[in-house]
């Protein structure tokens, strides 16, 4: 027997599948039994089948490296799923809906009356030097008052079992296609497991996304023209852009395919001449979106797009400027924002966060830098982070200098011990740390994916889950133990 739960270490950790030595969590019970029954050879066969499926399905991501330019790699995937009990998931779902609702009210307020600043809940000076605040958006009223239509919030679980929101991605969050593809791979490889377990499906995301986007159409037509705007095949998330367009039956366009005419409408160049576009799901950062309004050197965007959006001639998701709330400094205020806008207590807590803009908190960070995780406000993908307990003295000093030079740009958090799940190493299992990124769609209604993308740090002891830095992923099962709906 290859997998022995008796020797699987859980001491000092919170494991998602195994709650104590040899004792699986109820929702993972059948899965663990199944795994225990596999021989080494069977495990190898399942692994090979999954690898083959991934290769054939062409699931790739692009990695940037100075040496080789960009490379297309197959998606690193672990075949042991992460399992969550549906009852727990319901709570998380409610917490996410609450959070995104507050974030949208906050963004709308910032570009309108700024009551939140006048009422002293959020310091105005933070807005003044926010890199993601777009003064060009002041006074714009997007349909339904929603700015962040698609949000990817990263959840982590600490060793005591508490689930925290680690960050909210409101600009162009990616990963949802991998969530969908991981499930496809698992269904190809383990059809019998799906027959016997009550695993909730995830496949309705593309149609929910399409419905939400279509609801942003300025024209009242039966079938509005929806387009996914991509920076092109060299973008690390190109696979996803193409995948989502395909799944929604939307056009996949690049900036050069679009043109804004004198009537402020957006058109795409087609073989029959120009055709009007109603809604754009843009996967290009704000600053590259429109050379007329932002970076004049951008060749990725479309000149005049902001003009068209402000004139209400085209729907944009996410709205330009929504990123103002996607900021590791704003993050620290989200619990207050929930209380302020919704008069509710946050259902999912934040990780305690020290804001270097405040002298007291900054001094604490500098004094305890070797114990903390320090994050720049506006980097994603795990770049530019300091993990104090794993860093050298020099690296710590360098961050102290960075913090002093630009305190507004940094926040710090205590080092959590992220939960683990059994992950295959050869034909044995070892615990590896992971997080979870569910996706929340906001339009007329709010929708949360069933589970989300589980990212796992494949290196022993590592907590960096980003695929660009040695992370992989797992399928995420929301298991209904009560049966039925």
């Amino acid at each position, binding site marked *: 027997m290859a997998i022995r739960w008796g020797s699987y270490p859980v001491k000092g950790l919170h494991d998602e599948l195994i709650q104590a030595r040899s004792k699986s969590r109820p929702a993972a019970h059948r899965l663990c039994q199944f795994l225990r029954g596999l021989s080494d050879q069977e495990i190898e066969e399942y692994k090979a089948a999954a690898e083959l499926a991934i*290769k054939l399905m062409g699931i790739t991501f692009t990695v940037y490296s100075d040496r080789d330019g960009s490379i297309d790699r197959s998606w690193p995937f672990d075949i042991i799923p992460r399992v969550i009990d549906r009852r727990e998931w319901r709570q998380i779902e409610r917490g996410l809906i609450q959070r995104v609702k507050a974030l949208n009210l906050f963004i709308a307020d910032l570009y309108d009356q700024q009551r939140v600043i006048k009422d002293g809940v959020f310091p105005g000076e933070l807005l003044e030097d926010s890199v993601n605040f777009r003064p060009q958006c002041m006074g714009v009223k997007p349909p339904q008052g929603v700015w962040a239509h698609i949000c990817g919030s990263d959840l982590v679980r600490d060793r005591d079992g508490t689930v925290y929101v680690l960050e909210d991605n409101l600009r162009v969050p990616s990963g949802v296609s991998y969530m969908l593809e991981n499930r496809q791979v698992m269904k190809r490889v383990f059809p019998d497991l799906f027959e016997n377990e009550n695993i909730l499906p995830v496949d309705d995301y593309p149609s929910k996304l399409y419905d939400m986007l279509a609801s942003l159409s300025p024209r009242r037509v039966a079938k509005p023209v929806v387009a996914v705007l991509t920076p092109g095949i060299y973008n690390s998330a190109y696979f996803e852009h*193409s995948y989502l367009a395909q799944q929604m039956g*939307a056009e*996949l366009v690049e900036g*050069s*395919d679009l043109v804004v005419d004198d009537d402020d409408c957006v058109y795409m*160049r*087609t*073989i029959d001449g120009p055709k009007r576009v109603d809604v754009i799901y843009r996967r290009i950062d704000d600053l590259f979106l429109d050379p007329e309004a932002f970076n004049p050197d951008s060749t990725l965007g479309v000149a005049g797009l902001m003009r068209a959006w402000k004139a209400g001639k085209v729907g944009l998701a996410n709205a330009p400027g929504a990123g103002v709330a996607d900021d590791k400094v704003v993050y620290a205020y989200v619990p207050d924002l929930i209380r302020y806008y919704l008069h509710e207590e946050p259902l999912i807590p934040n990780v305690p966060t020290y804001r270097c803009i405040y002298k007291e908190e900054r001094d604490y960070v500098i004094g305890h830098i070797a114990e903390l995780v320090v994050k720049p406000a506006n980097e994603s993908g795990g770049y530019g982070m300091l993990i104090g307990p794993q860093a050298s003295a020099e690296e710590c000093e360098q961050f102290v200098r960075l913090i002093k030079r630009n305190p507004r740009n940094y926040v710090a958090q205590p080092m959590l011990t992220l939960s683990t799940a059994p992950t295959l190493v050869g034909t044995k299992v070892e615990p590896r740390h992971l997080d979870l990124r569910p996706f929340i769609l906001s339009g007329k209604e709010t929708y949360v994916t069933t589970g989300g993308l589980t990212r796992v740090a494949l290196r022993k002891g590592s907590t960096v889950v980003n695929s660009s830095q040695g992370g992989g992923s797992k399928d995420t099962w929301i298991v209904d133990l009560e049966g039925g709906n």
Partner: protein
Amino acid sequence: MLSRVANSLYWIGRYIERAEDTARLISVTSHLQLDLPKGIRPGWTSIVHILGNEEAFQKQGVADDERQIMKFLIGDLNHPGSILSSLFLARESARTVRDVMPREAWEEINSLYQTAKSDAQKGYWPKNRHAYLQQVVRGAQTITGMLAGSMLHDETYQFVRLGRNLERADMTSRIIDVRSADLVPPAEHELTPFENIQWMSVLKSLTGYQMYRRSVQEPVRRRDVLEFLFKERRFPRAILHCLGEIEGCALSLKKNAPVVARIRKLAQSVEAVNPGALEQSELHRFIDQFQLGLAGIDAAVRETYFA
């Protein structure tokens, strides 16, 4: 449909067909090498001429030896005319239009490139070459079949089909051009066994031998083979058949007048010629003109739909 997407689909059609035809050509030449007496073997460089790759060939300084030439023609990604380059470019084009293609077709294009790449070595040596090339031909045909059998036959599909048939007409004309010049001079009455073999190889590289037999029922000789390959509208690799397909595609698109006009003009020139009666040099000149005509169709398609 987006102009950029139409352009990519057109090139997927062309590149997949190019990979298939190149594989066919290498495969048949390999057999021909074994069948002919040493003195009149066409040599491997003749394939380089057929594919119009002399320039790259000389620039890269490829030695005139079988393995080097095979590497150049099959697995060299620096050489844009190699099988692997064609498959790579088809895959890159397919990546940008995955949203309009059936998923299975993308998987097939992707996997054909992956296996052709990892197995490329097998094509360099005679022992496994046939199986390798067969795999490429079969993979290309699977893709063609999948697209034909599962894509919406709207404009999207017409661009793939247009590209495929244009490339096929071009390759057929190239094969005729070089293979008919290679060996024995045209000797109508003296049917040497080797001439027979040469023309059989022309037919076989186009999987046309059996079909020729069914359609012509004459011995395999220059006059009849040329007539068959230029004019047999019922044979899918014959030039008039390809032009008919191209015209059908163009007619299903809007704003097609300039494209259709060029296709018809070219088809008329083929109908008017009696290829079997042409001297070798005349045939060569005619094929040159024909290829310019194809380039003209390509230019009209680009101006009308991709600009």
